[in-house]
């Protein structure tokens, strides 16, 4: 459906997105996930032809968005970050304009408008001026606008921002109901939202794609990993030396806090929390290092998201290379990631 190759957008000297590559398959719901300013909107704007790219290409069903914009745009319904509505028109007038501009056949216009309004539950408000509608309803009008003309591809930039919880559920149901007939890409910085409705999650950070996979697979990335947080009495050097010999430890971070207490975060490639904790206890007892606190944790999708998007924010370039490493800590899964993603 969509092929994105080496897509780059530069604002002055700053790269908004750099060398993005991905493929969107027909009939699936994709979630674009990333913190604010990661390049989600920029990518969507380029895919929909609202913005020109510095380099790279985007083809939609074989139509290059830069070479054949009209053909390509006919396949897309787009809701930008702010719903692009004309405030001094009524909903019906506005949707009629969009339908005409999209080249919907005259006979179908009425039916299309009715359908879109029904879908987004705005039929009762059709003769109100858009400026008199609340943010949530404007958002719905924006979504209705994207649905008009039954485009195969529907791209929604943060569709649930500014809605109340009830409306969020409704919009999610609406998006889920598009599954199969339409290909949907939506962006969000809220993980649970993407997790709930998307079949494939694309995590983007600082203009780079850091992970593309199904929600389940992403969670499996960290399966078999256990994180232990420890507070031990003892200097950093002593604690570090003591715990170094633990089996299967993939990362160990020790930091001395005040009063000779050291905080340790260690990750182990084991499922067996109990054995891990017992081993730590044995070592601590042998060396007489009192454990003040010990907490174990399984990695959740939330952690993965934070891990993937944060590790890049620390330092610039060198950190960027750390991210793939993070994924490759489980080599088998890494294959998986690239396969189902591309």
């Amino acid at each position, binding site marked *: 459906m969509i092929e994105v190759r080496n897509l780059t957008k530069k604002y002055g000297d700053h790269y908004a997105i750099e060398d993005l590559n991905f493929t969107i398959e027909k009939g699936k719901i994709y979630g674009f996930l990333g913190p604010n300013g990661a390049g989600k909107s920029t990518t969507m704007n380029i895919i929909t032809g609202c*913005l020109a790219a510095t380099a790279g290409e985007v083809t939609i069903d074989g139509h290059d968005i830069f070479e054949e914009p009209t053909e390509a745009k006919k396949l897309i319904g787009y809701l*930008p970050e702010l719903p*692009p509505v004309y405030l001094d028109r009524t909903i019906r007038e506005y949707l009629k304009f969009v339908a005409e*501009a999209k080249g919907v056949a005259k006979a179908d216009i009425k039916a299309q408008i009715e359908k879109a309004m029904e879908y987004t539950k705005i039929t009762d408000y059709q003769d109100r001026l858009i400026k008199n509608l609340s943010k949530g309803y404007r958002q719905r009008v924006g979504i209705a606008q994207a649905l008009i003309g039954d485009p195969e591809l529907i791209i929604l930039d943060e569709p649930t921002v500014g809605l109340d919880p009830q409306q969020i559920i409704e919009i999610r149901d609406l998006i889920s109901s598009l599954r199969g007939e339409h290909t949907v890409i939506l962006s969000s910085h809220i993980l649970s939202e993407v997790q709930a409705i998307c079949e494939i999650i694309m995590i983007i950070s600082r203009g780079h794609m850091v992970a593309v996979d199904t929600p389940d697979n992403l969670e499996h990335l960290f399966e078999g990993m256990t994180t232990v947080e420890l507070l031990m009495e003892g200097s950093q050097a002593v604690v570090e030396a003591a715990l170094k010999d633990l089996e299967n430890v993939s990362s160990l971070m020790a930091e001395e806090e005040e009063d000779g207490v050291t905080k340790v975060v260690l990750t182990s490639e084991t499922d067996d929390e109990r054995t891990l904790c017992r081993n730590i206890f044995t070592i601590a007892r042998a060396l007489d290092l009192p454990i003040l606190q010990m907490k174990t944790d399984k990695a959740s999708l939330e952690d993965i998201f934070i891990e993937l998007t944060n590790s890049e924010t620390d330092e610039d370039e060198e950190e960027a290379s750390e991210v793939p490493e993070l994924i490759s800590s489980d080599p088998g899964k890494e294959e998986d990631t690239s396969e189902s993603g591309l």
Partner: protein
Amino acid sequence: MKAVYKNELSTYFTTLTGYVFCAFLLFFAGLYTTIICLKNQFVEFEYVLGNMCFVFFIIVPVLTMRVLAEERRQKTDQLLYSLPISTTEVVLGKYLALLTVLLLPLAVICLYPLVLSLYGAINLTGCFLAILAFFFVGAAFLAIGMFVSSLTESQALAAGLCFVILLVNYFLTTITGYISSKAVVSFVGLLAVAAVIALIIYLMTRNYYISVVMLIVSAAAIFITYVNNQSAYSGLLPKILNKLALFDRYYTFMSGTFNLTDIVFYISVAAVFIFLSVQSLEKRRWS
């Protein structure tokens, strides 16, 4: 293009803008017809239009200020970019809607000479040609206004800038009267114009290389022609500026001569500014 045209036109007439515009134009047309044709018994209806040209200072900024600026402010330009219509179609649709709004009161004004002809010997052809000229001047100004509106997202700024441009154009012949006709003045003036154009190109494209090359090429061309043919440069700058005075051409129409070159000139001005508006919108996608 049709969708944009229809949408734009209905915006003018669901808000007050369209009605106020028509009322304004018709009010002054009526006022001047009463004063000139009825009170002072002139048979030349053209004088009415000639005296009315100041209305452009008000109607053009008011009509054009929101046309593209507002799209940008409300972010509805994103919708236009994502719809399967080209930027040219958007701009043309909007421009045609502007022309339609201008045509409506002019259609009513066409009745004036018809009514007047019942009471005196009126040169109807002359009157209608004058109205036609009025339309073309208006068309050229509206294109300029639309371009100005494409440059900013503030309506007020667009209106102000448009007003200043019209004002400078109005006084252009007066200003050029003060420019010395010495060749060297024209030479320096043209160099200055070349520099300003290069600067504008730089501001629009942010491409240092292109603007410098442009400046060097145009400066070299000016310099070479100046060295080769100094006499051609005497009075050249005022001559060029006078050519650009849109209002002066308008007055020749109102004195009863219909000059096709001037109509072509107005159409060219409109075409150039429509083109620039399209470029200005396109450019925003690249920034």
